[in-house]
């Protein structure tokens, strides 16, 4: 089978299928490393994690050890975490504050801008020794409204072009507070023994929510009264956002910390939440503010970033470590100046559903590992993602997942990428996506 035939995309037949070898074979994973993870913009961290000069955070992105730091002038730097001298890790703690990064191996020292500022017995090197050649090396990086991304391809488009329609959805998070949004201390770190693309699918799969997470909906109905939602009364929309990014946007069923009051938050919170909502309407306009407050969004930014704006605002990133495993890290966000009482409600709201100890996330982990086991059974070559091909896309259809896979197929097979927004066009105004010169924007159906 050809690499270019792993995605079977036939709107005329109402069929969209993905060959399961794409989630099993080491050769495919190796191609993904070269053609996706070495080419795309990848999420690294958030600027709020390094608020002060000297603050640093280390992280692994696509199996590469990196760290980012704020220098004495408050500028952000991102560095490969390896000594230019002989290779040892420079930054060996997860986060902290430093004036100097010193390699423990031969004691070479770098400032927070990555410049080599000292080494023992410098006279041991000859007159041609050029310190500037031995500064820490940086990958290409940029940030959008506080979200920092790196890219290991110097030819790639700019970050904002890469984000395409996803930028608007990052705005819907970043603009939630006049004080800006920050990452709350504490993160969820866990491994899922399944192919990373299954988590991309799952993160914007509205169809699985009710059956897989039955206990969560039972719990909420029991906790706050009312009915367990049924699949037929879910309103929502799936969208392709360009470049493989996708989102599902639904009417919120329960409360939202941003500013949608719900009995779960308690009567005493009502005034405070309404006040936040009024501020949002004044600052962002009624339409955008109500959309921020009353709709939930599950977005995947290709290839491995999820921004959930649901019962909590979360950042989830997954680093593949092989064809059948990935390391997941998730954080929660809050307004920079949130009151103690609102922060308390926000943290509680997260825990009802999310995280390794939540009432839903463990079920997703189980589902993904179950799929991976199922794939090895053989007998079935293809997985089906054709739901909603024939109609205007709902939040529990699969348009957004098809958009992910189309992008995956074009990158991994090194084919020109043709955007296909399906019928998502026109439901909301489609954001302008600037096509690369050799590509054309097509919208069939």
């Amino acid at each position, binding site marked *: 089978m050809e690499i270019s035939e792993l995605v079977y995309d036939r709107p005329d037949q109402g069929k969209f299928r993905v060959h399961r070898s794409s989630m099993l074979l080491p050769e495919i994973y190796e191609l993904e490393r070269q053609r996706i993870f070495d080419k795309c913009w990848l999420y690294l961290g958030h600027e709020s994690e390094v608020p002060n000069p000297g603050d640093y955070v280390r992280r692994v992105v696509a199996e590469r050890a990196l760290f980012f730091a704020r220098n004495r002038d408050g500028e952000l730097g991102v560095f490969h975490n390896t000594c230019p001298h002989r290779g040892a890790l420079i930054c060996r703690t997860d986060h902290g504050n430093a004036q100097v990064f010193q390699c423990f191996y031969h004691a070479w020292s770098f400032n927070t801008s990555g410049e080599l500022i000292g080494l023992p017995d410098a006279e041991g090197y000859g007159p041609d020794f050029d310190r500037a050649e031995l500064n820490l090396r940086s990958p290409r990086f940029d940030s959008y409204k506080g979200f920092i991304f790196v890219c290991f391809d110097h030819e790639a488009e700019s970050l904002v072009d890469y984000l395409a329609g996803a930028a608007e959805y990052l705005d819907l998070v970043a603009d939630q507070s006049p004080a800006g949004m920050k990452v709350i201390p504490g993160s969820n770190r866990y*491994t899922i023994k399944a192919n990373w693309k299954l988590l991309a699918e799952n993160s914007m799969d509205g169809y699985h929510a009710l059956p897989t997470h039955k206990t969560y909906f039972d719990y909420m109905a029991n906790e706050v009264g009312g009915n367990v939602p049924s699949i037929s009364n879910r309103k929502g929309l799936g969208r392709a956002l360009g470049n493989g990014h996708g989102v599902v946007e639904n009417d919120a069923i329960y409360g939202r910390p941003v500013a949608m009051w719900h009995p779960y938050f308690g009567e005493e919170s009502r005034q405070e939440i309404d006040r936040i909502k009024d501020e949002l309407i004044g600052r962002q306009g009624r339409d955008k503010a109500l959309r921020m407050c009353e709709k939930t969004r599950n977005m995947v930014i290709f290839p491995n970033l999820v921004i959930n704006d649901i019962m909590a605002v979360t950042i989830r990133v997954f680093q593949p470590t092989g064809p059948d495993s990935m390391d997941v890290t998730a954080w929660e966000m809050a307004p920079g100046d949130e009151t*103690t009482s609102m922060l308390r409600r926000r943290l509680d709201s997260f825990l009802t559903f999310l995280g390794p100890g939540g009432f839903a996330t463990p079920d997703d982990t189980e589902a993904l590992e179950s799929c991976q086991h199922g794939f090895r059974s053989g007998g079935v070559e293809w997985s089906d993602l054709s739901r909603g091909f024939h109609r205007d896309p709902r939040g529990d259809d699969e348009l957004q997942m098809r958009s992910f896979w189309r992008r995956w197929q074009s990158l991994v097979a090194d084919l020109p990428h043709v955007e296909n927004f399906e019928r998502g066009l026109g439901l909301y105004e489609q954001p302008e996506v600037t096509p690369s010169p050799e590509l054309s924007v097509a919208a069939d159906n």
Partner: protein
Amino acid sequence: MATPTVQVSPSVSGLPATAESLLLQHEVEQLLYREARLLDDWNLDEWLTLYTEDARYVVPTTDLPEGNPESDLVFIDDDYARMTARTVRLKSRHAHREYPWSRTRRFISNVMVTAVDGDEIEATASVAVWRFRAGESSPYVGRYDVKMRRVNGQLRICHKRAILDLEELSDHGALSIIF
């Protein structure tokens, strides 16, 4: 690199060895052993009876073991109502990570009663939970910091903070059991 000073935890000491403290030590150990056995047996209804109705059960994240549930993201922050809901979920056959239930064996050791203030008793213990399921085995290792209170003569847990020593839930994928 100018790293912050290494944080040394405050020292912990037990009670002086009096006849009274030996009895209390025995009582606390028996309570923790009983909890372990009830959880290993998936006898979740009876497990709940070991707690007071104002109880709180907290598990911090692996990267922030000192995490405060009021201001930091934690894995679990349950009051008695959510502890009850957790047992309902685990018994429902729809908590898919635990259906069928995993086999577990909890080992509680190094139990030390650290404070007694009237009816309030504090203790700390080391814990290892072996969990076996679907061909995988993964240990949850850590420490319990427990506060207990005497209710109608019976010792009950009113606060349990279960701190994982793991760096991440690498092989576990989740914290699907009660730790």
